[in-house]
């Protein structure tokens, strides 16, 4: 590494991107391009940063694989911050392997953390957990540690495991305080506040109450039959019936759970499940079919009894009750958020199909949710996928902490 590159890298490490740019602004060699790219990223000009890093990676080429891999990690981090998630998924694994093979433990660990963060954002929780476990924690740069713990917290929160989530948030807070970056401390505090806020509302026997994540966990662990409208599934003990791809069946289950221990009239079920205004014979026939399907799906968890006026949900097991788990606040596009809340990455056409509305309607709703910070999309065109942002946000102010070139 040469003298001005060393001086510029020191400026960046001291949080002075303008000082770094002053030193290498006119240079076109790959090390200078990479430093300029990182400085531009820290200054918030992500398109320019991406272009500079792309040129740096190309100029390093196959002859300087470690320097090139560091540029790829930096590009992936920019793509991740821009929520363009398909791109980092392609590059990170390869770059990480190169860095590991050449003994660059810090940058390899940072690449692994980014990969886990990316997997969490697109709802691949098991893979995110595996990648996070595989990181060399001692080698992880200090500024990446709070983010890595936030990923661990996010995985636990999506899995509704309150204690591991709380422990990870505590460790994120300690890691953030240790390096004393105010933006990062604030980020972790926001995540902790989200964790302390009600996660759901439980409606049981005509009464509703708000639940923290730990309460949700307790309810799911009890013998209560829970119709979960946050994730569109039915849950009893260790048995789970997912219904996120069966919106009609879920609507029926939801109406039956809300009325329990009472029954629900056929007319009411028709209105809930088919949005039918008045019941005719064809609707009644369709209701019979759908009730039959729901009975088959819920077989291990509950029975469906026909009553004089309609149907009654009866959980299996003595003394078992029924509850309906709802999002904590009634909000617009709740049905859409409920579908997204399963953690999967949905295409807008699949959402339209599941909700029985037009693609244009879904698109408008998704754009409104994205503008409100409640949903994220990644990929472009036909490959575009949507997820709910119900897990902690991620620090973006610490872009590229460990990508400095070394001699």
């Amino acid at each position, binding site marked *: *590494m*040469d*003298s*001005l590159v*060393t*001086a510029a890298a*020191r400026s960046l*490490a001291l949080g002075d991107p303008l000082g770094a740019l002053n*030193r290498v602004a006119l*240079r076109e*060699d790959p*090390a200078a391009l990479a430093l300029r790219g990182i400085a531009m990223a820290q200054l918030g000009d992500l398109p320019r940063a991406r272009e500079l890093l792309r040129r740096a990676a190309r100029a390093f080429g196959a*002859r*300087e*694989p*470690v320097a090139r891999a560091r540029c790829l990690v930096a590009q992936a981090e920019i793509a991740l911050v821009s929520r363009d998630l398909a791109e980092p998924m392609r590059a990170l694994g390869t770059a990480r392997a190169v860095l590991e093979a*050449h*003994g660059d433990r810090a940058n390899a660990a940072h690449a692994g953390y980014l990969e886990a963060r990316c997997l969490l954002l697109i709802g691949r929780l098991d893979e995110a957990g595996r990648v996070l476990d595989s990181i060399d924690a001692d080698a992880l740069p200090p500024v990446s540690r709070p983010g890595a713990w936030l990923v661990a917290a996010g995985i636990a929160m999506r899995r509704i495991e309150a204690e591991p989530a709380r422990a990870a948030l505590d460790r994120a807070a300690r890691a953030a305080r240790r390096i004393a970056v105010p933006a990062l401390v604030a980020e972790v505090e926001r995540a902790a506040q989200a964790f302390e806020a009600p996660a759901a509302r439980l409606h049981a026997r005509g009464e509703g109450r708000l639940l923290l994540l730990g309460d949700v966990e307790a309810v799911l662990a009890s013998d209560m039959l829970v119709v979960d409208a946050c994730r569109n599934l039915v849950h009893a003990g260790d048995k789970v019936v997912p219904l996120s791809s069966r919106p009609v069946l879920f609507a029926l289950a939801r109406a039956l759970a809300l009325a329990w221990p009472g029954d629900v009239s056929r007319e009411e079920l028709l209105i809930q499940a088919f949005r039918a205004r008045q019941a005719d014979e064809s609707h009644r026939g369709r209701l019979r079919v759908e009730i039959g399907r729901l009975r088959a799906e819920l077989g291990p968890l509950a029975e469906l009894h026909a009553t004089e006026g309609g149907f009654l949900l009866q959980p299996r097991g003595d003394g078992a009750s029924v509850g309906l788990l709802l999002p904590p606040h009634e909000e617009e596009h709740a049905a859409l958020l409920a579908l997204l809340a399963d953690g999967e990455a949905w295409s807008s056409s699949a959402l339209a199909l599941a909700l029985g509305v037009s693609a244009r309607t879904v698109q408008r709703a998704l754009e409104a949710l994205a503008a409100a910070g409640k949903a994220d999309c990644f990929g472009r065109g036909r490959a575009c996928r949507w997820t709910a942002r119900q897990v902690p946000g991620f620090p973006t102010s610490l872009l590229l902490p460990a990508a400095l070139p*070394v*001699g």
Partner: protein
Amino acid sequence: MKPRTAEILREFGPFPEVDAVHGVGFDGRRVWFASGDRVNALDPDSGEIVDAVEVPAHAGTTFDGAHLFQIAEAVIRKIDPRTGKVLATIPAPGGGGDSGLAWAEGSLWVGQYRERKIHQVDPDTGAILRTIDSDRFVTGVTWIDGELWHATSQADASDIRRIDHRSGAVLDRIDMPAGIGVSGLDSDGGGRFFCGGGTSGKLRVVRRPA
């Protein structure tokens, strides 16, 4: 010429408040090494840092018998090591692309990292007297008993080589073990090289072939 593998005799560091070791120079007793915002003097027997001069220090370091010379950004400073006073400043020949620095025969010898060159420079004016080409990125540079040695780094491998100062031909080569780079380079004039370890923050002693 048969390349050999470096024999590392001793490692110093990493040291507190030293992120990286850049230039390395030997004054007969102590090893001076550049670490960004100062040049540290290490006693190679005890391994202790016994003195330091606070001056910008981003690349090569050398000693002419009385003064320290230190590259920072795009200049070379001439420093009194006892007082830390900067006595003179000349432009560095690579305009900031400079890496290693050595003193010999009344001239400064400056490595230009990515250009793969070593320049002979007038220590009073900074004028380039002549230029030797290498075929690898040049890091440290040193002269021992009329022999020109320099360290290289490329494709994530590093070596220390003796070259013909007229033709640039490689006469001898010591390969560093995988994953170990050399930034600055100097010798004690006898059997030891002192090698900066870049961002590892270490200073290593490598056996010089007889």
